């Protein structure tokens, strides 16, 4: 198993277009890293540079401490699952999986054993004689996976491997991939634009935007301690709600003034807001941290616009003139469009962002 280190990696496509502007990352042994970001953020380019399919413009890639920056893909000790599977249509499933083993001049018996073992792991043992054209999308995906696993790579790369599967299969494969990782313990990098996929699979998530890393952290880190408004707005379904509020100080409290409400918070706990006195900041609230409360205790009241039942819970949308606020409530809560409801905040879990830099305002108190 292996560690991977990217040192000051950059990729420039044309004079003006950068795929990756600057990237430093250290992946620990056995770790499952997910590169997450919107399309065009450079996550796939990063992975392709690690794979050796794309030359780096600048920087160094170390695998197990060894510089692999200028080594061809075949000598890097990596394997990869492609977005469109890229399994070879003219070879049987067996030949697909055995391809790299044959090139490594393994003995026929060894190859057979390895192929069958790997195929069993991804449950395609009975498909070995088929051609890819005769397989369903899900089965093709498994072949691609088996081919990548059979190599026993130091580093396992996956480029949006689940994006072509239907919704149900995608969730199943997620679980299986995670189980396989726990079994093989291969250091893995997984690229996706689906934040729920990232949350459910990653040891650590690397969130990218415009060719740069925005935040690296565990799923909990990026969800509960989002580094900036981009992350808070990207992670979570529905994403965070943002309110522009004015920060005013009273004797003991800070009062946050919004056009619809005024929220009073403890100035001791939120000392760091002192330098924003009289200025505008952004209040970020996760949908589940907006609470329905009796009108008497409510910070403000509003009218329900739409209710979206999800089975396990419901998403309630509220129209506050210029913005639509979304909240998650339990399935039992009885609300319907047009209802007037009282709303409160889970103060322990609210976040603040600098309205200019959009970065998170960090409190020593640890909120």
């Amino acid at each position, binding site marked *: 198993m292996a560690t991977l280190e990217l040192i000051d990696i950059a990729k420039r496509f044309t004079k003006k277009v950068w795929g990756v502007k600057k990237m430093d990352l250290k992946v620990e042994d056995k770790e499952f890293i997910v590169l997450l970001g919107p399309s065009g953020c450079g996550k796939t380019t990063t992975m392709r540079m690690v794979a050796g399919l794309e030359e780096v413009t600048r920087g160094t890639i170390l695998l197990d401490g060894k510089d692999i920056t200028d080594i061809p893909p075949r000598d890097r000790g990596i394997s990869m699952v*492609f977005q469109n599977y890229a399994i070879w249509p003219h070879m049987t499933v067996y030949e697909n999986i055995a391809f790299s083993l044959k090139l490594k001049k393994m003995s026929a018996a060894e190859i057979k054993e390895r192929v069958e073992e790997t195929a069993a792991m991804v449950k395609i043992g009975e498909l070995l004689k088929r051609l890819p054209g005769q397989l369903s999308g899900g089965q093709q995906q498994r072949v691609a996976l088996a081919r990548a696993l059979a190599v026993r790579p130091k580093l396992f790369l996956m480029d949006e491997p689940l994006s072509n599967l239907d919704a149900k299969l995608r969730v199943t494969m997620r679980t299986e991939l995670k189980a396989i990782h726990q079994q093989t313990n291969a250091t893995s990098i997984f690229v996706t634009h689906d934040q729920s996929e990232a949350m459910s699979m990653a040891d650590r998530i690397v969130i990218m935007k415009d060719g740069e890393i925005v935040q690296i952290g565990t799923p909990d880190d990026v969800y509960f301690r989002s580094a900036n408004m981009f992350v808070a707005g990207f992670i979570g379904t529905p994403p965070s709600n943002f309110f522009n509020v004015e920060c005013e100080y009273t004797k003991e409290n800070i009062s946050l003034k919004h056009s619809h409400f005024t929220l009073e918070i403890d100035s001791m706990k939120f000392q760091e807001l002192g330098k924003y006195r009289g200025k505008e900041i952004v209040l970020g609230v996760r949908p589940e941290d907006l609470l329905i409360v009796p009108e008497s205790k409510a910070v403000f009241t509003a009218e329900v616009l739409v209710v979206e039942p999800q089975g396990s819970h419901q998403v309630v949308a509220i129209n506050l003139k210029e913005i639509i606020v979304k909240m998650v409530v339990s399935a039992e809560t009885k609300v319907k469009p047009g209802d007037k409801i009282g709303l409160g905040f889970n103060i322990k879990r609210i976040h603040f962002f600098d309205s200019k830099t959009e970065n998170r305002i960090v409190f020593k108190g640890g909120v």
Partner: protein
Amino acid sequence: MVPYLLIAPVVIYYSIFWLFPVLNAIIESFRNVDGIWTVSNYIHIFKDPVFYQALSNTAFIVIFSVTIEFILAFGLALLINTKFRGSSMFLFLAMIPMSLPAVAVGAMWSSGLATRGWLNSFLMTFGFIDDASKILFLAGGKMSTMLLIIIIDAWTVIPFVMIILLAGLQGIGEDVREAGAIFGGTKFQILRKITIPMLKPTITTAMILRIISAIQIWLIIVLLYGFNRLPVLLEQVVLNYDQLGAEYFERIGLALSVLVAIIVSAAAVLYLKVSGSFEKEVKQDE
């Protein structure tokens, strides 16, 4: 119902303007000038030593020109497929020889290969040769004549083969080749084990089209050398029909055409058999 209505004109057209004349040609090749059924036209051909010369010359040209053209065209297609800057302009440049009329190609090379043509002028101007050592391009023996024809044919036809192969290459995703690189293949191994097998249907198309038209080569030979200097099959057809004029020779020309068609089909089937695409094609047709 609708598709058959749309297809009907094609079928009718082919019946009248292809199938009918073809059948006509076959029937007439078995009759003599007086309309009596006979195989004498064919016997005349088989007794003519020039026929066997034409046959062996054609076979030589086909085997070498198709092989050379395929290898060079494939290389060129791989090159253009790398999508360097200016590749689309280069592609157009490579297409020009294919769009040139056969007669223009003939004029171009006959003005070039003549003893006082542009090729010798070029070599002399740049001091490669002097007046005494002018190269007699068109006066060579049989072997150099055929070699020259193969080179000229390659110049004209490579773009056509290249286009077909390039279209096929573009149909193969980049990712299957990248997967080959990841899973341990060198560039050559990827070409041999992934690109070429996946391109096989396209290669078959290109090869069959080329074999068909290579067997029918004649015009460039006649434009450069005139009739009977380097006999090939179709040149003999034209010679019998167009040059000798009499109806007797016309029928021999027809019989020769039928033989050419049989040879072409046989070569195509042989290629499919040897390359192993035959079973697959039959399966697809069912």
